């Protein structure tokens, strides 16, 4: 290179930063497009908060999921007050509860007494192990302010969403169940991705006999009605199995049925990508097979995989709930949103203790959020179209 040329090269060395659009990578373009989707932009923080709270459910819940308040069965949600009867501001508090028996129906319920129980943040409560470890801690995010020396579980009680028939705090159980239900769908989707990507990838890349076998297998699995299939597989699990094992096996069962959609998407994408000019161009440049697959093909269908995966999460949450509700999935004492809903299987319990339906609200919110997020991702998935 001549000196003159070197000089001119040095001058133009300053890489242009004129417009960020021109130097924006795929993920940046996707993010810009995703940001325009308002529902998704609300759904994502909601989901993050839900996951965080459920992850640290012992801390955020005022009580422990299996802790029983024997004197307070089927309590309705407690009202939170700020002003006392005379109109003086006290701060958040609840009134104490007294048992009241209806003289005509003999139905037991609770009425508010005059006793003022103050609520507070970061209060002392039942002891728990931090993240299931042996490290004990007794501070809860919020709850009743216990007088010095009084043990939790007495008569200073507060139930945000009522209690169930055994006197357990429903709100605390929902948070604890969320930990299972929300993580379950991720574990199950992880299995789905492994099976779906492998089989779909093999089917699309190898073609021929493998392709035919995998595709016919998918047809077969798709034609089996879902719930009876789950029932059969769940019935095959021995009832003596530990809860952890059951949790993983259940998620595996869910993914054994759910992988078909993902495999189809993967195969179709691979088939069409294989013929794309830029993939042929990569081969013409002398790329190895591995480089073609991982450097050129994978990035361009990764976004579709992400979309497909987020789209299948709501189905998994609902599937787990359905199975547990029917008594086929996770079972008590494991707490999940599905097992919680088992308590309101009768019309009777629904009429008398409607607050046991609160888990459904959480299911709806999380499913909706995942749907919105999936929607936003789908819109953003291919920023080049």
């Amino acid at each position, binding site marked *: *290179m001549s000196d003159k040329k070197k000089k001119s*090269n040095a001058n*133009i060395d300053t890489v242009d930063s004129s417009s960020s659009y021109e130097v924006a*990578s795929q993920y940046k373009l996707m993010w810009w497009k995703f940001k325009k989707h308002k529902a998704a932009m609300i759904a994502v923080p909601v989901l993050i908060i839900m996951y965080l709270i459920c992850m640290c459910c012992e801390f955020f819940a005022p009580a422990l999921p299996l802790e029983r308040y024997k004197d307070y069965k089927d309590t309705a949600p407690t009202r939170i007050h700020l002003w006392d009867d005379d109109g003086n501001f006290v701060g958040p508090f609840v009134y104490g509860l007294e048992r009241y028996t209806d003289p005509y129906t003999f139905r037991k319920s609770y009425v508010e007494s005059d006793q003022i129980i103050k609520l507070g943040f970061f209060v002392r409560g039942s002891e728990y192990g931090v993240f299931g470890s042996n490290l004990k801690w007794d501070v809860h995010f919020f709850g009743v302010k216990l007088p010095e020396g009084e043990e939790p579980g007495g008569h200073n009680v507060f139930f945000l969403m009522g209690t169930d028939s055994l006197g357990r705090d429903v709100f605390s159980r929902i948070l604890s169940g969320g930990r299972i239900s929300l993580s379950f769908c991720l574990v199950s989707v992880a299995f789905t991705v492994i099976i779906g990507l492998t089989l779909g990838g093999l089917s699309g890349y190898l073609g021929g006999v493998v392709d035919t076998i995998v595709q016919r297998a998918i047809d077969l699995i798709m034609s089996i009605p879902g719930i009876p299939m789950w029932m059969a597989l769940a019935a095959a699990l021995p009832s003596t199995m530990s809860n952890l094992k059951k949790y993983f096996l259940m998620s595996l069962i869910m993914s054994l049925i759910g992988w078909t959609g993902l495999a189809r998407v993967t195969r179709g994408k691979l088939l069409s990508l294989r013929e794309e000019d*830029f993939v042929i161009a990569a*081969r*013409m*440049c002398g*790329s190895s097979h591995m480089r073609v697959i991982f450097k050129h093909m994978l990035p361009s269908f990764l976004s579709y995989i992400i979309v497909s995966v987020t789209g299948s999460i709501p189905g998994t949450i609902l599937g787990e709930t359905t199975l547990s509700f029917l008594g086929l999935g996770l079972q008590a004492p494991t707490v999940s949103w599905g097992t919680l809903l088992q308590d309101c299987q009768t019309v009777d319990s629904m009429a008398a203790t409607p607050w046991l339906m609160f888990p459904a609200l959480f299911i709806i919110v999380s499913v909706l959020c995942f749907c919105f997020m999936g929607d936003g991702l789908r819109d953003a998935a291919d920023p080049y179209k």
Partner: protein
Amino acid sequence: MENKYTNPIIEVKNLKKYFPITSGFFKKTVGYVKAVDNIDMYINEGETLALVGESGCGKTTLGRCILQAIKPTSGSVLFNNKENKQVELTTMPYSQLRDTRRDMQMIFQDPYASLDPRMTVLNIISEPLICHHLMGPAERREYVKELMVTVGLNPRHLERYPHAFSGGQRQRIGIARALATKPRFVVCDEAVAALDVSVQAQVLNLLMDLQEKMNLSYLFISHDLGVVSHISDRVGVMYVGHMVELADTVKLFARPMHPYTEALLSAKPVADPRNKSRRIMLEGDVANPAHLPSGCPFHPRCRYAKDICKEQLPEWRELEPGHYVACHCAQDLQLHGMRGYEK
């Protein structure tokens, strides 16, 4: 042509590419689409051979078969490598083929599809360099900048993504990528068809300049006769997978020997209002490559067809030195060439 076989960089012998047609549950093969059928040709070092023909006649498939982007069904493709040894490409193992790709590259037709939208220009152009382990990252960067200047791109746009470029600029990126490893043979698959006319001229001149500088050989696939007459030394005419005529550009344009070539040339408009059109309208449709007519594939549309044309596939023969044709009646016909070329 005096330099026949002096130094062919590519020699194609009996090349065939049949795509199977499958049907039914078990994907039984019920027939073949004969995209490329029994083609013989060679390309000399430093020469531009143009391939012309209607859409769907197998030009692109032939180009891709030569570069082994598509595995040909049978036949042989000999490539004269750096050590001046002829190597067979069709049976070469993938890893060896990868090394050979340094010397042969491809420019694609569609500049929108041929660039990976997820890579920056720097990465796209340096891809062949990375694959062949040439140069370090810093050196590569400088070299890519130089290449961008060569093809007429602003080297400041190094970090941009393809979506920030126009069609013409993208095509230049594709050209820069193809030239990065300093190949000796380049297949230009309708390299200028997607560009508007002013840009076409620029790119064509660029390609010709580079040919002079780097002694490149081109296989120039096109359906634009004007472009072909401008750039090529020799022209091959294809009709549904068959090569029907191959000759020097001037010779072929002045005195074609195959009726199809005559019809093709007559379709090119001449910029002279006094000129009476003598366009030959071909009757019927292009033959279906899955069900070729018997004998000469062109006979149903040929106005000179005789009985023999319906029965026998014409032989590929060298009628005059360097002038190949596949027609039974070639020596008996007096066909019209393109105006301006006729003496």
